[in-house]
């Protein structure tokens, strides 16, 4: 009986080995490769960011906002399902077209189905005096309920008037 057990185990072992090799190969093939092309994105001079306004840096897919001379880089990607969130000038808020999530000018969560505020990038002033957005350092947006800006919509929403 020992020989039968040995052969049986050998058989199971071989099958397991082949399955593992297949799974590993598949994983290695499909494993996402980091984009690599990102990194530090040169933006604009700090003075070009308007106080009380927002400018978009297309290359970084981010917005820069200045509040009390403090500049924050906010990701354009909705934390709900990844739609690009446009800025609404009339209400001074970010309003997502996909499922109606609303964020204030600092990207803090106001309303809608999003689980948190808009994510943020590190931003710094380089040697040439321009702002650089580091797209490798994405930090989660503020939790819902955090509202340091505490500023009501300055006007009508961009989307309610559309129908």
């Amino acid at each position, binding site marked *: 009986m020992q020989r039968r057990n040995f052969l049986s185990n050998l058989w199971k072992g071989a099958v397991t080995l082949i399955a593992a090799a297949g799974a590993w190969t598949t994983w290695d093939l499909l494993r996402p490769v980091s984009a690599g092309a990102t990194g530090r994105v040169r933006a604009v001079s700090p003075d070009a960011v308007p106080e009380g306004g927002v400018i978009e840096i297309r290359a970084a897919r981010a917005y820069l906002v200045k509040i009390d001379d403090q500049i924050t880089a906010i990701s354009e990607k909705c934390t709900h399902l990844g739609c690009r*969130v446009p800025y609404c000038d009339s209400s001074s808020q970010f309003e997502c077209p*996909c*499922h109606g999530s609303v964020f204030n000018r600092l990207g803090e969560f106001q309303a809608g*189905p999003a689980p948190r505020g808009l994510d943020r990038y590190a931003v710094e002033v380089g040697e040439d005096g321009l702002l650089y957005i580091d797209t490798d350092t994405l930090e989660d947006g503020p939790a819902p309920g955090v509202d340091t800006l505490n500023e009501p919509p300055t006007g009508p929403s961009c989307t309610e008037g*559309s*129908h």
Partner: protein
Amino acid sequence: MSDLPTPGHTDGTSTPLPNPLSAKPTVIEGRRVLGIVPGKPAAGESKDHAEQDAVMVWPHLLVRHAVVAVATLLVVLIISLAFDAPLREIANPTNTPNPEKAPWYFAALQELLAHFHPLVAGVLVPGAILIGLAALPYIDRSDFIKPKHRKVAVNTFTTFLVIWIVLTLVGFAFRGPNWGWVWPWVEWHGEL
């Protein structure tokens, strides 16, 4: 059955069938024919029995399937001649269209996503639906077939089906910019 011609004599004008009784019997060693019993029809007499009778798939079902196939392809042909498949502008990662719509069969999910946390609407609900569907025959074990004898199963399924259809319709046709409510006859935002 007995009046059908035997293989090889299908046209009816050929030589008459040999009388089986007069033909020379095939003798198998150690066996002999005890007698020939006239065949009787396999089908029962009453209508009830007839419904449960076995009928040949060739040609009864095959001819029906052929008609169904041709009808289906005709419908596809007519729809394809009448309506062109949509093609929007080229993909642009920097501009999300407003409203952004999923394909219609995911419209119910998208509608749920506008109201619940994505873990609930995007993962738990579809997961539960699929597991529930797959487990259905192992939950409803009663022997009965008729809907009136399995009211719980039928009512549950119908409730979910109606909710799903309503959500799909709402997400598909009644949602406009910023996922706000619109009336489809006023402005149309459905995408196919």
